[in-house]
């Protein structure tokens, strides 16, 4: 509303950095903090859980399809070969998370670079880069990733690269839109007027101001990449030598009608991870939104 002019500080005021304000907002957001806590917990479990638990996820340790709770040694039961599901969950999270993070990083790298160049320079460069982006958007992401992994090697690196290669267009479009919007603002012209060169304007003036939506999108991209990795592994396109949550679901899916647990728990793990990531992403989105800050 047209309330009073933003306060004119009378006494020496404390400097309120926009980033710190966002963090204050984030901390007040309970679902987001819960998501962050859950995410930290999952990361810790995948990093150190297997070490503490000590089981070998590949070793056949018991009869197949032991239901959860029946044997105290294997609280979540065993799979179709008689392998311990808890050990699988603790070991299989690492590759999933690593691929998710690496793919998200690659996505941001490609997407932000292309989007920034297109949005900043405009004209023919923009035209060319956006046609290129549209071309990549025409390819259904999962199918294209499947093709890449099938044709090349099903290693974790290749999977991360494939996911990165299919996910960047959205980031590029978002970055471009932000750059186009910010480029028109007077502080960008002001930067040029005081002698800033193109590179400085792009990376030191526009990018920091475009970051909030990009950070949110990066967070959500991690979630999407985890789902992608799970999907590929589920189809049997993952690295066959590495335990992962998607692989556990794929390997056990033939027996779902006789044993529900070997597919349910890994799926739940994926769900909780992505859920935590998206809670954090939503929280960041709200924290960066100045409209909500006034409440």
């Amino acid at each position: 509303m047209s309330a009073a002019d933003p306060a004119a500080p009378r006494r020496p005021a404390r400097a309120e950095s926009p980033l710190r304000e966002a963090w204050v907002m984030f901390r007040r957001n309970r679902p987001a903090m819960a998501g962050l806590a859950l995410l930290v917990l999952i990361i810790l479990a995948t990093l150190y859980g297997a070490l503490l638990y000590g089981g070998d996820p590949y070793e056949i340790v018991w009869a197949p399809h032991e239901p959860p709770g029946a044997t105290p040694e294997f609280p979540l039961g065993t799979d179709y070969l008689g392998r311990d599901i808890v050990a699988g969950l603790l070991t299989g999270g690492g590759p999933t998370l690593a691929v998710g993070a690496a793919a998200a990083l690659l996505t941001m790298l490609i997407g932000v670079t292309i989007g920034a160049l297109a949005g900043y320079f405009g004209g023919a460069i923009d035209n060319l880069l956006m046609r290129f982006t549209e071309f990549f958007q025409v390819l259904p992401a999962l199918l294209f990733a499947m093709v890449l992994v099938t044709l090349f090697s099903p290693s974790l690196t290749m999977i991360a690269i494939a996911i990165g290669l299919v996910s960047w267009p959205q980031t590029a479009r978002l970055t471009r839109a932000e750059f186009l919007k910010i480029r028109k603002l007077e502080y960008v012209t002001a930067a040029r007027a005081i002698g800033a060169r193109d590179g400085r304007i792009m990376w030191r003036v526009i990018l920091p101001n475009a970051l909030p939506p990009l950070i949110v999108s990066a967070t959500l991209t991690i979630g999407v990449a985890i789902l992608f990795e799970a999907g590929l592994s589920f189809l049997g396109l993952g690295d066959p030598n590495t335990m992962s949550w998607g692989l556990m679901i794929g390997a056990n899916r033939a027996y779902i009608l006789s044993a529900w647990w070997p597919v349910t728990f890994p799926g739940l793990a994926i769900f909780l991870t992505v859920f935590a990531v998206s809670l954090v992403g939503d929280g960041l989105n709200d924290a960066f939104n100045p409209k909500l800050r006034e409440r």
Partner: protein
Amino acid sequence: MAGYLLRRLAYGLLLMAGVVILNFFLIRLAPGDPAEVIAGDMGGATAEVLAAIRADYGLDQPLLVQLGRYLGAMMQGDLGESYFFNRPVAELIGARIGPTILLVLAAQVISITIGVAMGVMAARKPNGVLSGAVSVVATIGYAVPVFWMGIMLIILFASIIPIFPVEGMADIRLRNEGWLERMIDILHHLALPAFSLAVIFLAIYARLSRASMLDVLGADYVRTARAKGASERSVLFRHALRNAALPVITVAGLQFGGLLSGALLVETVFNWPGMGTLAFDAILRRDYTLLLGVLFCAAAMVVIANIVTDLAYRLADPRLRGET
């Protein structure tokens, strides 16, 4: 409008040519002899077969000539020969494309209608219970792996409440019944796959239309409508919804590729006889010609969906209608 459509179609063809060129180089960039790559996992392709492939594809000719031949063939609808099924790829895909379109469209319609309805209801009271529920559903929907969703539904409906078939597209026992019975049977089979796919996208549309609606409800022209004395109902459905729908149309277009990807996974879970199961078979057999054919057709579907979306957007937004 017609001029616009023509240009849009020409651009679509250009994009498809791009896909063909990409396919061409993918085969050649893959490790190993292209002929062997094309032959795939046929169980030790014989020298004769490899020679036949080389002759067929002109692999002994310069790269540009090969590309020209490939482009020409693809644009005429010749997607090559599947070495596993021993049939033209175009024919194989032709048999499977219908079920995929059915699944994708069903999921699209369900997710948009229910999603937008949820979003609009949530936007009426942004701090209400319903609004919170929509946020929760949206976050969950975003986080569930679509294939796992399908599996959970199978477990639920196969063993606990067996009211929906969990596999395939039609019951062969009904093969000789009338068309109505068969159609009802197909819809019956469609329920679970379409629902699992729709849940994910429903979440996207619910969240998007809630945000878009809230945005529009704060707009000056909504205040104008209220100042005229319009009722809340008219404000919501006449003035706000049409504007709030614009971003939904955009996203529906952008998400089509994602929907197809999701359909691929759902098809393999439910054994739905579409392009997804075909692609899955192609991967299992390392039948690259078939796999790339599926990629080509899927891309074509996305191109067409994008054109339809653009046209829909132009109809919905008068600001774009004047442009040719």
